[in-house]
């Protein structure tokens, strides 16, 4: 229980940090923290394999990709969010609704009947729920089709990225280049004034 509260605190704080961080790099760090804490939570929920996957795929692959892109895009000078905030005014009432929904949700959970306590039983050991063997068996027998479909999804993603990257290879037209240069100068000037 104590572990849950500690982990929950870390999760929420790191999530908030991810969202409010001024620079994407900080966000990545916060997100890394978040993912790590989540992996621990998975462990407490006897999802050993997922905990490992969480670390390897998210922390190892996705976040590295993020860092890579940050490095590629903002080579030190480019500011983020240069223009005016164009979000319509309606965002305030909408956010109120969202917050109200959150409040409702949490209060509903708080008032939920105690039947939500997890079922008891042998967990974690060889051949029972949560073990890697159990997981793997399910993955390659009952759930084989979804598993194979993930392969398809990944392949499509690869093709998509290559297509997008191919577009990237083509040189941007001189007019677009000029326009972006002009807007960047304006942005820098504005920052200088600020």
């Amino acid at each position, binding site marked *: 229980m104590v572990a849950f509260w500690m982990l929950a605190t870390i999760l929420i704080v790191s999530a908030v940090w991810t969202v409010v961080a001024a620079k994407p790099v900080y966000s990545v760090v916060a997100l890394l923290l978040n993912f790590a804490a989540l992996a621990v939570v998975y462990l407490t929920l006897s999802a050993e394999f997922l905990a490992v996957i969480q670390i390897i795929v998210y922390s190892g692959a996705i976040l590295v990709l993020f860092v890579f892109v940050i490095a590629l895009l903002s080579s030190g000078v480019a500011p983020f969010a240069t223009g005016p905030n164009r*979000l319509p005014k309606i965002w305030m009432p*909408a956010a109120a609704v*969202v917050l109200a929904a959150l409040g*409702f949700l949490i*209060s509903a959970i708080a008032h939920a009947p105690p039947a939500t306590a997890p079922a008891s039983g042998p967990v974690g050991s060889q051949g029972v729920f949560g073990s890697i063997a159990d997981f793997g068996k399910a993955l390659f027998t009952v759930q084989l089709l979804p598993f194979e479909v993930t392969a398809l999804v990944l392949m499509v993603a690869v093709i998509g990225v290559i297509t997008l990257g191919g577009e990237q290879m083509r040189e941007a037209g001189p007019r677009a280049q000029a326009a972006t240069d002009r807007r960047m100068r304006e942005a820098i000037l504005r920052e200088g004034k600020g």
Partner: protein
Amino acid sequence: MGSVAYPLVVALWLLPLAGAVLCWAFGPRLRSACGWLAAGLVGVSFLLAVASWGSATQNLGGVLGAHQPLVSWMPGFDFGLLLDPLSLIWTFIITGVGFLIVFYSIGYMDGDRAFARFFAYMSFFMFAMLTLVLSDNFVGLLVGWGLVGLASYFLIGFWFERRSAVAAARKAFVINVVGDVGMMFAIFLIVANVHSIGFGDVFAAAPGLSDKLVFAICLALFIGAAAKSAQVPLHTWLPDAMEGPTPVSALIHAATMVTAGVYLVARCAPLWNHSGSAQLLVATIGGVTALGGAILGTAQWDIKRILAYSTMSQIGYMIMGVGVGAYEGGVAHFFTHAFFKAQLFLGAGLVIHALHNEQDIRAMGGLWRRMPFAFWVMLTGVLSICGVPGFSGFFSKDAVIYGALQHGHPWIYAVDIVTAGITAYYMFRMLFVAFLGEYRGEAAPDRAGRESEHGTHAPGWVMNVPVAVLVVPSVAVGGALMFGGDNSPWSRFFAPLYGTPSSRAIAVPPISEGVTSLVVFLTVIAGFAIAWQRYASRGAQADAPARLRRETERMPAVLTNLFYVDWVIERLIVRPAQRLGELFGRVVDPHVLDGAVRDLVFWARWLGTLVRSFQTGLVRAYALILVAGAACFVVYYAVAAGLR
């Protein structure tokens, strides 16, 4: 009953159609042979009608005449031909007089640029008219009715480069359609109640129908009859119809087509016999038309229009005759009228032809010296139409007039007698102004119309012979057939159809037939005397041009405007319909109905603009909307759960 076939009847019916098709299809190649072809086929048709006399008057298994079934659409809708005494009489006139007029037209129309087309139309007209009188059912009758209207439309508008002819043709057709529509309504009433269109079935069922229904049927039928026979108030097309060539006027607007109404009433006698109020209505309309036509006839200067109004008036007599129930009287007047009116028109045609299409009698005068043949023809015709004793018209008109009294309609009897006097006045007026005195026109009349307007040599005998032939029956047929009351050949001929005249008389006339004849003759003398006094006396002859001019100027407006019937129709029906059309076409359709649709388009656009404003293109805004929507669901379920 259908076991006996009558190929002759079918042949006499179809021959004119063949003539029409041949003239129409091969007209340009046949050229002048068209006239001979058409006349020949009609002549053969007439001979076939004569040959069918026996079968038409036979009584075979309870069916009078020759009945030839043709096609059947469905039970109750059987079409066939019926040649009985009544249709035989009409067939004689149509083919016989028709033959003479077509023959005459060969001369009259010589050189016209649509020579072949004319004969195609004439033949087609005769086919249509035969369809009308030979049909054994109401729908066939209506088919003939419509086709006759069409043929008349073609012939009135024959010279269609004239705007007036085109307008007259359209007017005639539309008014005739009004009549067709009336007949259609009668057919609806008949089929709804009798479930058959055959004359035999309907007349057999007539006694079982209610008075109101029979009256309604008769009324609807009479709308058709009135339109075709130019009865008040549907008569306005007839004077305008004189735009057609003169032989057309003779054939259609005097001898045959306009008497279709008489045929209809005579044919439907079993219906009229069952509705006294329908008889009264028809007789009254006939009387009004007879009197009105005669009065208008006194105000005309156009020789063909005078004859047209006299036709209207004479048909009024016939309608009166069949209306009161003196069927053979009305039909007799049709029979004699066909001869003497055709003769009058053809005689007028001789004059018109000779005077290069001059039709105004004020521009004539003194023609009896230059065209004696035409004068004698016209004179015998006028004597016959006026009912001078001994001439055909006398017998038939007498039968009608006395019939009115016999059937208990003294008022109509009185109107008849007055009209007879007026008839004498305007007919002699025409004769005196056109033929006596000095010639007042500019064109030099050629002798007996030897030269046509196109300068080609017209075969004068072609025009003169038919007229001369017509003189014989118009003088003598009445005396030969209609003398002798119930025992006359005429009455005996119709006895199988109607019974003898005196057997159906419902009133014992206070005045004998002889006295009636005398009274009529006296009024005719009076009319003649007035006409003589005004136009033929020595004083009148002295300053004829000035007197005629004065008379033209002083003519009452109500007469020159033809009782304002046209004016009323124009104001009350034609113009409102056109205004309504303009309103619908220019305002309602584009602005109200289409406007409603355009409003719909406008609001759809508005809605589109509204929704478009949500499409900011900002990904974050989309996310916001999405999440807000999801949150709404959450709130909804939370609230719902809370309430539960």
